[in-house]
């Protein structure tokens, strides 16, 4: 692969790759929202997607677990391989895919059920626990990994919707973790959170990368710099630059990347 062809063939890396994306195009009806994106997302790494609003970060993220299937006018083309298997293959059941590729949304969206049931729902429908004791164990483990156990352990029966915004988001992360996914997609998980809750979630993301491949969309350059090892910069549907986070922030190769991280576009 030619290193200088940065517009379309950026950052292709062969080692411990989780997602191989080749020539991915996403259309909303006639709107070409993602254009020729090629990227390799690594395992046990935090990858940040940055870029101005409307550049297609969420769209691309959602095509990684086929959440775009739920939008009737949305069409995805190109190859997205997860561990070498095409996720858009006719044989793939998106439900099974989503158990493997979990997602945390921008707005905290706990179920209007108890905290316990919020976490237990995934393991229940995927049959991860054989009995109540095992389920209790999964719930506790997930809430600990969501860094929220200490705050809620005395009120597991309380509704998840009664928590504060930051707690709700950590609950949602714990819920996503509970189904034991291999990849965790996070779409601006901190945009509704205060600085303290943001710090907690960032710490959590840092811990999660030991076991997961984490992809995080963020509007905050500082956040991308703090939590990620790899950064992808999107602009108007193109993946402009994809490299080590350090490299992107200290030595951007593309003019547009530089403008964005120095605050001139965005």
């Amino acid at each position: 692969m030619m290193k200088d062809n940065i517009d379309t063939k950026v950052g292709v890396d062969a080692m411990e790759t989780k997602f191989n994306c080749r020539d991915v195009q996403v259309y909303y009806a006639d709107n070409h929202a993602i254009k020729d994106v090629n990227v390799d997302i690594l395992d046990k790494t935090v990858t940040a997607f940055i870029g101005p609003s409307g550049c297609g970060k969420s769209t691309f993220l959602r095509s990684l677990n086929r959440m775009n299937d739920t939008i009737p006018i949305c069409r995805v083309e190109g190859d997205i391989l997860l561990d070498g298997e095409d996720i858009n293959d006719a044989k793939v059941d998106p439900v099974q895919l989503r158990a493997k590729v979990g997602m945390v949304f921008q707005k905290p969206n706990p179920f209007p059920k108890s905290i316990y049931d919020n976490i237990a729902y995934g393991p229940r429908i995927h049959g991860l626990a054989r009995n109540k004791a095992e389920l209790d164990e999964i719930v506790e483990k997930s809430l600990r990994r969501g860094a929220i156990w200490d705050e809620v352990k005395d009120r597991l029966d309380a509704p998840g919707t009664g928590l504060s915004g930051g707690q709700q988001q950590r609950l949602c992360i714990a819920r996503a973790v509970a189904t034991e996914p291999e990849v965790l997609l996070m779409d601006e998980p901190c945009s509704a959170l205060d600085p303290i809750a943001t710090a907690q979630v960032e710490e959590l993301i840092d811990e999660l990368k030991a076991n997961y491949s984490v992809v995080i969309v963020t509007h905050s350059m500082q956040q991308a710099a703090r939590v990620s090892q790899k950064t992808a910069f999107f602009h108007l549907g193109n993946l402009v630059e994809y490299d080590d986070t350090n490299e992107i922030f200290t030595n951007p190769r593309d003019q547009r990347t530089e403008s964005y991280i120095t605050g001139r576009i965005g």
Partner: protein
Amino acid sequence: MTDATVQGGAPAPRGSIHSIDARTAKRNRAEKRFRTYGKIAIGIGLFFLVVLFASIIRSGAPAFTRTVVDVPFTLTQTQYEEAEGTLFKTKAYSDFFIAALDNQLREQGVEAEFDADTIERLLGKVGSTIREYYRANENQLGEEVSFSLATSSRVDGYLTGRVTRESMTDSRFLMAADLDLVDRLVEGEIITSEFNWPFITGADSGVDNPGGAGIGASVVGSFFMMLVVLFLSLPIGVAASIYLEEFAVQNRFTDLIEVNISNLAAVPSIVFGILGLAVFIQFMHLPQSAPLVGGLVLTLMTLPTIIISTRASLKAVPPSIREAALGIGASKMQTVFHHVLPLAMPGILTGTIIGLAQALGETAPLLLIGMVGFVARGYPDGFLQGFVEPNSAMPAQIYTWAARADVAFYDKAWGGIIILLIFLMIMNIVAVVLRRRFERRW
């Protein structure tokens, strides 16, 4: 505060907040006006509601009381045999009754003149009532029994003040002279007023006996119809809505279905009646006047209402809940049944109960399948027969009474309306309670 003071984009000084400026005053006035309009509108609404209820209750109340003439009566074995031996048997019994009444009046020290015709106008065919009683209960011969004989509804009217000597004209139903006897009976405390249970529990009586008409049988008819409507329209309506809202792909065909459902909701109910007549009775040969057919017709009518309200409540469930469930690998169906449906439940139940309430009060389609004008003379023999035996329904019964020539049925119609309204209110209260119980915030 003029434009001249604005220089270089600096904001104009806004003045003291202790004095209200013209703009604010204007806005406050507008708001006050709007509130007044609102209060007037609500006031008008409440006024009409009160007038409506007052007139319904005033007109309907007489249906709930009845006056009875209660005379201790004894018939010996010899009298019985003697009466059975005569040519006009009921006449003989009637004479016995007149004698007993005469006796009773004299005992109370009241003087009265009356004949058999007066008695018939006041109390109906007393002779045959008594004869039937003794033929069925021969063991009561020689014992003292009491017949609580209901007076004709005109006597009720006289006693409640609806009919006065001045307002009435002599007819074969009641003569002014008969009222003298009524006064005497009141004086002798032989005539009394009591709660009209037979109106609640009884069946329709036929055109010649307004006093004996009851709404009970048609309440049962309505109940069976509502069972049919509930058990057909709720599952069909909810399943159709879930499919259309959550699963169906959006294309021309589903658009067409959607438009047609809205159209169906606007179709006049009598059209469903014609459809029911053609399909269920003439084509499928289901029994006429049966609650089953009424229920089927009303199901057709209720379905669009239920589908529209169910789809609205499904739509109102925030998409973030669906995304949350799909995002952790729940299937579409799990997402709908575990998360979306419970949240939509209050709306669905409210819509269903409103649909049922509409169906309960619907008269027009029942005209065409023979439930209006049908005289339900008794209750069905059993639960299953309740669906197929001819019966009437509450609104149909009310319509039937209101359409009868004898004005005495008017009370009954109003009374029936009260019963119908009580049922409707109960249903609405149930709807509110259910909605409160199921309501959850997210």
